[in-house]
C-alpha cells in the first residue's frame, strides 16, 4: 500500500465514522419525533369534550323545592326527573324507546351537572336556561371522528337510531366541543368522559414534595460531611462505593423495602403519597448525593484555603463559601433526581399506589394514585375513550419532566461559576 492509498484509507474511515454518527442521530431523532407525534396526535383530543346543549327549565315543583329554598334545599333535591324531562325535549315526538336511547347519549352524571349549575346560580329557579351537558364517551368518540360510522350496526356502540338523533342534533348545532375541565378536576372514573387526572396529579405532587423534604436535606448534609469533613479512610471509601451502588439498584427493590418496612413493620397506611414519598426519597437519596458531591468537589481548594487564611473556621469556610458556590450544581442534581422520582412506577405498584382512586386526596395520608400509575391503569381499560386520556396524561407527565429538566439546566447555566 502506497502512502497515498494509506492516507485515502484513513480519510475514508473518518468519513464513514461521521456518516455512522449522523445516521444514528437521525435515527434517534426519528424515533423521538415519532413517539411525540403519536402521543400528541392521539392525546390532544382529550383536552376537549363533546357537549349537548339542553334547554332546562328549573321548575321548583318538579324538584319539590319549598318557596324561598335555601342552598341546602337546592343541594338535597333530586334532579333526575327534571334532567330526564329536559333531555327528552330534544326529541320532537315522545317515544319511550327513543327516550332510552337518548339517555345513553349523555354521560351518567347528567343530572349532577344540572344540579351543580343550579347550585352555582340559585336565582335561576323557575327560569329556563341552555346548559351544555357532557355527552357519553361513545358520542364523544364519534364526534371527534375516532370511531367509524360506516360499519354494520352490530359492530358499533351507537345504533342507527342513535346516529339519526345525533345527526339531527349536529344539524341544529346543539353538539359542540368544549374545553374538558373534568380531565383536570376529576379523579379516576370508569366512564372516560368523566375520568380525570385530579387524584393522580395531587398524589404525584404530595409524593414528590415529601420526597424533596426528606431527601434534599439528608443528601446535602451527607455530601457536605463526606466531601468536606470526613477523614479519607477505608470506611468512607466503603460508604462511597455503596452510595454509587445504591444509585444503580433497580427501583422495584426500593418498592419491596417500602412494602416490608413502611407497610409491614411500621404499619403506615397503604396506597398513600406519604409512603410513596418516603420510598421515593430512599431511591432518590444516592442519586442526589452523587451530583452534590461532584459539585462540591468542583469548587477549587483556593476558596477554602482563602477563607481559612483570613481566620474562618472549617465550618465557616464550608457553609459561607463552598456551599453557596456549589449550590447551582446541587439544585440541578436535586431537580433531576426528583424528575426521575416523578416518573417512577415500579416501586409504587408494591405499595399500592396503582389503584382506582375517585376521591381527590386532601392530604398525604389519603389514598391516591400517581401520574405514571394512571397511564398504566388507563392503557389497560377497554373503553375507546381511554386511548386519548392515556396519551394526554403522558403529555402532562412529559411537560412536567421537560420543565423540571429545563429549570435544572437554567440554574446550572445561570449561576454556575467557571474557574479558569
Amino acid at each position, binding site marked *: 500500500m502506497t502512502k497515498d492509498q494509506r492516507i485515502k484509507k484513513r480519510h475514508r474511515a473518518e468519513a464513514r465514522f461521521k456518516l455512522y454518527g449522523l445516521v444514528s442521530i437521525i435515527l434517534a431523532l426519528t424515533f423521538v419525533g415519532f413517539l411525540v407525534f403519536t402521543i400528541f396526535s392521539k392525546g390532544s383530543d382529550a383536552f376537549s369534550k363533546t357537549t349537548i346543549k339542553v334547554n332546562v327549565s328549573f321548575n321548583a315543583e318538579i324538584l319539590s323545592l319549598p318557596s324561598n329554598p335555601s342552598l341546602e334545599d337546592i343541594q338535597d333535591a333530586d334532579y333526575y326527573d327534571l334532567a330526564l324531562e329536559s333531555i327528552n325535549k330534544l326529541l320532537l315526538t315522545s317515544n319511550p324507546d327513543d327516550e332510552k336511547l337518548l339517555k345513553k347519549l349523555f354521560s351518567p*352524571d347528567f343530572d*349532577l351537572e344540572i344540579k351543580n349549575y343550579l347550585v352555582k346560580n340559585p336565582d335561576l329557579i323557575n327560569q329556563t336556561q341552555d346548559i351544555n351537558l357532557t355527552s357519553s364517551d361513545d358520542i364523544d368518540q364519534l364526534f371527534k371522528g375516532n*370511531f*367509524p360510522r360506516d*360499519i354494520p350496526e*352490530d*359492530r*358499533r*356502540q351507537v345504533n342507527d337510531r342513535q346516529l339519526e338523533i345525533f345527526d339531527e342534533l349536529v344539524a341544529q348545532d346543539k353538539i359542540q366541543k368544549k374545553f374538558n375541565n373534568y380531565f383536570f378536576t376529576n*379523579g*379516576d*372514573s*370508569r*366512564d372516560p368522559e368523566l375520568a380525570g387526572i385530579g387524584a393522580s396529579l395531587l398524589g404525584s405532587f404530595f409524593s414528590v414534595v*415529601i420526597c424533596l*423534604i*426528606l431527601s*434534599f*436535606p439528608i443528601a446535602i*448534609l451527607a455530601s457536605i460531611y463526606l466531601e468536606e469533613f470526613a477523614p479519607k479512610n477505608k470506611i468512607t471509601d466503603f460508604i462511597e462505593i455503596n452510595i454509587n451502588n445504591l444509585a444503580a439498584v433497580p427501583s422495584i427493590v426500593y418498592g419491596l423495602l417500602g412494602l416490608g418496612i413502611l*407497610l409491614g413493620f411500621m*404499619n*403506615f*397506611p*397503604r*396506597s398513600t403519597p*406519604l409512603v410513596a414519598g418516603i420510598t421515593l426519597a430512599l431511591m432518590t437519596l444516592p442519586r442526589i448525593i452523587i451530583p452534590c458531591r461532584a459539585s462540591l468537589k468542583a469548587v477549587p481548594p483556593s476558596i477554602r484555603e482563602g477563607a481559612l487564611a483570613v481566620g474562618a473556621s472549617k465550618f465557616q469556610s464550608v457553609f459561607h463559601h463552598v456551599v453557596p458556590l456549589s449550590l447551582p450544581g446541587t439544585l440541578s442534581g436535586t431537580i433531576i433526581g426528583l424528575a426521575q422520582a416523578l416518573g417512577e412506577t415500579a416501586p409504587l405498584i408494591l405499595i*399500592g399506589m*396503582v*389503584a*382506582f*382512586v*375517585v*376521591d381527590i386526596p386532601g*392530604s*398525604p*395520608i389519603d*389514598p391516591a394514585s400517581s401520574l405514571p400509575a394512571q397511564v398504566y*391503569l388507563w*392503557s*389497560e*381499560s*377497554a*373503553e*375507546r375513550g*381511554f*386511548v386519548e386520556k392515556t396519551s394526554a396524561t403522558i403529555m402532562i407527565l412529559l411537560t412536567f419532566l421537560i420543565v423540571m429538566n429545563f429549570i435544572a439546566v437554567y440554574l446550572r447555566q445561570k449561576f454556575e461559576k467557571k474557574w479558569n
Partner: protein
Amino acid sequence: MKIFKNLLLVLSMIFLANFAQARDQIKIVGSSTVYPYATVVAEKFGKGGKFKTPVIESTGTGGGMKLFCAGVGENHPDITNASRAIKTAEKELCNKNGVKDIIEIVVGNDGIVFAQSVKAPDISFTKEQLWRALAEKVEIDGKLVNNPYTKWSDIDSKLPANKIEILIAPPTSGTRDAWNSLVMEMGCTKKAIELLGGDKGECAKIREDGYAIEAGENDTLIVQKLDSNPNAFGFFGFSYLLGNKDKIKAASIDGVQPSLAGIQDYSYPIARPLFFYVKKAHIGVIPGISDFLKEFTSKKSMGDGGYLSDIGLVPLSSEKYNSTRTAATKLTTISIN
C-alpha cells in the same frame, strides 16, 4: 440553618399527623378481571354520597388473596376480588392469620373469547384444536411429541392454511389461568394426559417455538395487534369484545359464538364465574361495607340489564342470584376449615 430547622419541623408534623384516626374508606384488592366491574360499582357507591368511594387495587387474584389473608385490622384490605374460587392453601393462610369469617359473593359470569380481526373470514374451533395449536407437547398416533404444527391446516385440513399466530396473556394473569383450566386442560386428549403422567396441569404448558406469542397484560394492545394482522388470534375477556366490535370478532368454540345467554348457562364453553370475598370482622368497623355489598348485589347492578351487564359482565341465573343476594344481605360465611 433556619431552613433546615423549618424542614425538620414540617417533617415531624407529618409524622405526628394522626395515624390513629380510623380508616373510613373501603379497601379492595385482587383480580384484574373483576377490577372493571368493581370500579364501576365503587364509583356509583361513592356518588351515592353517604360513604367515600372505595379504593381498588388490581393485584391479580393470587396477590389479592395474599394481602386479604394477611390479617384482621384496618391495615389489611376488606375485600378481595377473584377470578376463581378461593384455594385450600389460601383458606389455611387466612385461618392461620385469624381471618376466620369470610363471605363469598359470586359476582357473575365471564366469558373468554378467542378473537381475530374483523377483516378475516369467520372461523370455528374445537377445544382440542386450540390445545393442539398451543400446547408444548401433543399426542400424535399414541406418541407424545414436541408440537409439530405450523399451520392451522396441519391440525385439521378443514382449517385454513395460515400460519398459527396466537397472542397469549402472561402466566400471571387470571385470564391465562382460566384459559388453561377451561381450554388447555379440557382440550387435552385422554391419551396425552396418560402419557404426561396423569397430570392435567401438564397439558397447559404452552409451546415456546414462536407460534404462541406472549403479548403482555395489556389487552388494548392485543386488540391493536389483531387489528393490524388478520392472521393472528388472541384471547381476552368478553368485555373487550363488546368495547372493540369495530375491530375484532370472536371465533366460535365448538360451534358456539360467545353471547350473554351462552355464557350465563355455560353453553358457550369458555365461561367461568367471578367472585369477591369479604372479611366479616371488618363489617361495622370500616363504614359502608354492608351497604357496598347491597349495592354490588342489587338487581340494578348485577341483574339482567343492570349496569354491569352493559360493560360485559354476564348476569347470574336467577337461582344463583338469589343465593348470592342472601349471602350479601344475611352475611353468611363460608367454611374455611
